[in-house]
């Protein structure tokens, strides 16, 4: 049974790459329609395998200590280290598959110039994301993460929106900076422990005999924190993110803001904090203060946005602050909350990007304050948008609620003051989220004479509803049944010493 699951895991990671390879090989005879259907099919394989694995993991989490579904030696004989999933990576893997499938579905119905290339790049990016969360080897995590860089750059340069030239370059430079700084941190862990390989198991084994000194923990954690922090848009290094997301084509923005950005947090939770607990303890207050800037300062910046896509982009930067706060608390509750919030936020922000794209495409208007009264013309779109907004501001019933709730609870024992400031972030996000809803959908219905472009707008089509329903269903499922994530997560986090120190 275990073998068939690991084959499924391999299939989930390889399917998008296989699709990309097929498209590249049969480029001349590949039609636009077959490109779309091929991508949907292979992305569907990824989604199906991720969901089956998630179900199997939920059922058997008690027997799985460490990584489950670890792929066999057959593949590692060819130089490829084993893949596997644990309580932290399982939800991320599932989210990557869900958002990836939704992004491909959304792209499949959109009207794109040169769709073959678009889907090829999208598949490379999705494969990279699935692989990044399925790897148990630090170097391979890093490599898979970097698969996204060139496709996003190309996609932004070709299909991007306003300001794409600058935004694409800024993204490439910032992401490379963050990635290389964290690569140096990863190399440091590898060399300092003298591990046999970059594999997590090997490093943990090596650390048992050669622990890293407090000084080096301090230095290496700083490298990882700021390197990965740049990738996650931690406060002073966030400037690339909003521009990138608003200029990137929708499907890439969904994957980038929803999934790729969680990678930095994932590595912090999975690798940096467990391996370097003393370093994290030294930096936790710095991390918390910077994260508060994300929550409050970026939250206020979000409030000032008029452009709908910029508002969504900034809000996604602001929410990352809460995840950092959860990690800074170094407790099972806080880190578990961060994982839940990463899951919930990935889905909800992808949904928001998708729906704002739908709104902007229909109205041809970016400025929220010029819209209004769309509710009567597009009730379904409005319904989805309101649900997504409520999810992202943490209404009970959605996955995000459990995340924000447990992070704030854990923060109280970390520092009541920080907890109090962080809680204002929820209020701020309620203000900008609900105001956006009010401005776009509520109010006077625009008259045909005054606002011709706002009349005669059609609602979401059936094909557009499918990805929205998938994303919303996943949000609600975890919202009502958080145990699907928290139980395995709890059993995996509670055996990590770093997360069980009483402060």
């Amino acid at each position, binding site marked *: 049974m275990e073998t068939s699951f690991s084959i499924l895991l391999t299939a989930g990671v390889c399917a998008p790459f296989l699709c990309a390879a097929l498209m590249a090989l049969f*480029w001349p005879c590949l039609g636009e329609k077959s490109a779309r259907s091929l991508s949907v099919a292979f992305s569907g394989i990824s989604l199906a395998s991720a969901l089956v694995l998630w179900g199997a993991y939920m059922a058997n989490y008690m027997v799985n200590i460490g990584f489950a579904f670890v792929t066999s030696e057959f593949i590692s004989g060819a*130089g*490829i280290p084993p893949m596997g999933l644990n309580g932290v990576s399982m939800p991320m893997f599932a989210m990557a598959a869900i958002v990836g499938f939704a992004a491909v579905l959304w792209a499949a119905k959109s009207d794109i110039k040169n769709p073959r290339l678009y889907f090829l790049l999208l598949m490379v990016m999705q494969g990279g994301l699935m692989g990044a969360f399925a790897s148990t*080897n630090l*170097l391979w995590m*890093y*490599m898979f993460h*970097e*698969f996204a*860089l*060139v496709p996003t*750059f*190309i996609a932004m*340069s*070709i299909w991007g929106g306003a300001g794409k*030239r600058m935004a*694409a*370059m800024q993204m*490439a*430079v910032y992401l*490379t*900076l963050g990635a*290389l*700084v964290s*690569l*140096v941190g990863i*190399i*440091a862990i*590898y*060399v300092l422990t003298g591990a*046999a*390989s*970059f594999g997590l198991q090997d490093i943990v084994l090596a650390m048992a005999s050669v622990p890293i000194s407090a000084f080096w923990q301090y230095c290496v954690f700083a490298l990882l924190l700021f390197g990965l922090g740049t990738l996650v848009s931690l406060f002073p290094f966030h400037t690339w993110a909003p521009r990138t997301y608003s200029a990137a084509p929708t499907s890439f923005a969904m994957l980038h803001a929803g999934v790729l950005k969680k990678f930095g947090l994932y590595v912090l939770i999975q690798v940096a904090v467990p391996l370097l607990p003393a370093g994290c303890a030294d930096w936790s207050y710095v991390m918390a203060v910077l994260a508060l800037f994300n929550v409050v300062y970026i939250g206020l910046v979000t409030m000032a946005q008029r452009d709908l896509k910029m508002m969504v982009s900034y809000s996604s930067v602001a929410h990352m602050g809460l995840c950092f706060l959860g990690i800074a608390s170094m407790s099972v509750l806080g880190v578990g909350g961060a994982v839940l919030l990463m899951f919930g936020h990935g889905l909800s922000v992808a949904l928001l990007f998708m729906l704002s794209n739908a709104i902007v495409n229909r109205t041809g208007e970016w400025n929220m304050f010029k819209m209004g009264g769309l509710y009567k013309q597009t009730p379904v779109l409005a319904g989805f948008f309101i649900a997504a907004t409520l999810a992202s501001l943490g209404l009970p019933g959605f996955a995000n609620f459990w995340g924000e709730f447990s992070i704030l609870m854990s923060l109280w024992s970390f520092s009541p003051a920080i907890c109090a400031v962080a809680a204002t972030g929820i209020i701020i996000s309620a203000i900008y989220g609900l105001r956006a809803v009010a401005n776009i959908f509520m109010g006077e219905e625009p008259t045909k004479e005054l606002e011709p472009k706002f009349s005669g707008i059609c609602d979401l089509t059936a094909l557009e509803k499918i990805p929205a329903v998938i994303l919303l269903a996943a949000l609600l499922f975890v919202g009502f049944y958080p145990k699907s994530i928290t139980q395995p997560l709890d059993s995996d986090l509670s055996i990590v010493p770093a997360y069980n120190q009483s402060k």
Partner: protein
Amino acid sequence: MELQNISFDWGSVASEAVLFLCAVIAIVLSAFSRKESSIVQIFAMFGIVAALFVEILCPTIGSGETYFGEMLTGASSFGCFVLVCALLTGLMGFGYFAKGGKRGGEFMAVLMICTAAMMLFVRANNLMFAFIALECATVCLYIMAAWNRERASSLEAAVKYLVVSGVSGCLFLLGIAFIYGAGLATSRELLYFENFTAGMGNGLFMTGFALVVSAVLFKVAAFPFQFWSPDVYQGAPTPVSAFFAVASKAAGIVFIGKIFTFIDFSGGGMFDISENIVFTISVISAATILVGNLGAITQINVKRLMGFSGIANAGYLLVAVAALIKMGSMAFFELTLYFYLAAYMFANYGLFFVVNQFQGDDDSDQTFADYRGMSRKSSLLESSLVINLASLAGIPPTAGFFGKLLILIMAWYAQLYWLMGVMVFGSVVSIYYYFGWMRASLDFADGGERPLRETGALAPTLYALSASTLFFGVIVFFLVRL
């Protein structure tokens, strides 16, 4: 010199002999062939392939023996490396001579002599022999740089290289004189590398040694001897620019690595000197990285940009050399060096092949603007451009990433932390110009008026290079457990 002691081990230089022989035959053939036919070129390509086979089957690889009275060491991987470079340059030559270049057969002859000379240079075990081999290669490079002699840009490149190489040759010779004058051994053994360890405390010897190293740094285009390379790369015919960028640089770096491995720094009194040498090489490599990357930012001429990129890459390679001197171990260094050079070769030839595909025999004024709309015109050239630029920028999963990774790991082992910082900074800066080039080619707008050509032999070569760039990195996992 006691010549009677020299044994003539012709078998050890079989590969070089094949190259020289084929070069002579090629010259004779091209003198007799009336019209501009490519028969001589094809013959020369077979000659290079034959030399490559001989080199692979050559029994001297890896043996610790010396030949010709200790003048030559056994062959190293460099021989195969530079032969592949020559092969690729020859292939690019077909494209170049098809679009208006002249005297293809003679060009191949000069290329083969240059290749053989570089192989001997790297195999040298004696400074005087190294000098002669180096000058032989350099003279060939003058001729090749000036090949398009009707064009001012090509002549300018050749003259610049002539002047700079003259200076470098003088430095080398002066260094030899100083080392000889230091008189550390009996006259027969004075200039042999294995005796250099003894000279580390001697001021005269050290001066001479520094001069020799600077002379080779000229060839590598390392700071402060880097200024010639963008001009020369820009002006020389494109296949020659590629050969300059890869083979000439590789020869210099491998030679520097080699002479430093001969010196044993572990002896007690020399510890301080080793520290100083590590520091000096580190500063040179840091400055090289900075000058190369910062200089490239403002470039829009693609061949000049490749020149600056070459300077930056020389800097990265020197980081590995600095780490080698500090650690004093050879196994990991050799892997890193040849892996990085191979990655650099695939990427550089992949790009220069694209540069060579524009019409006209002079590519020296190609700018980003010529690349606009390339993704519409040719998906083959575009994909080659994207993959190889990503490799030079060090983006996984390309080979360039693994090269940088190995160098970074070496640097951490050697505790050269600040140098790692400079390297990371340089790599981040390099994103700007490599991706800038990529972005220009992705522009769908019209603009690139210069027509492109796609010749028959081009596609397989470019596929091979791109595939190598993409998948060569996997080799690392078989060699080292990462």
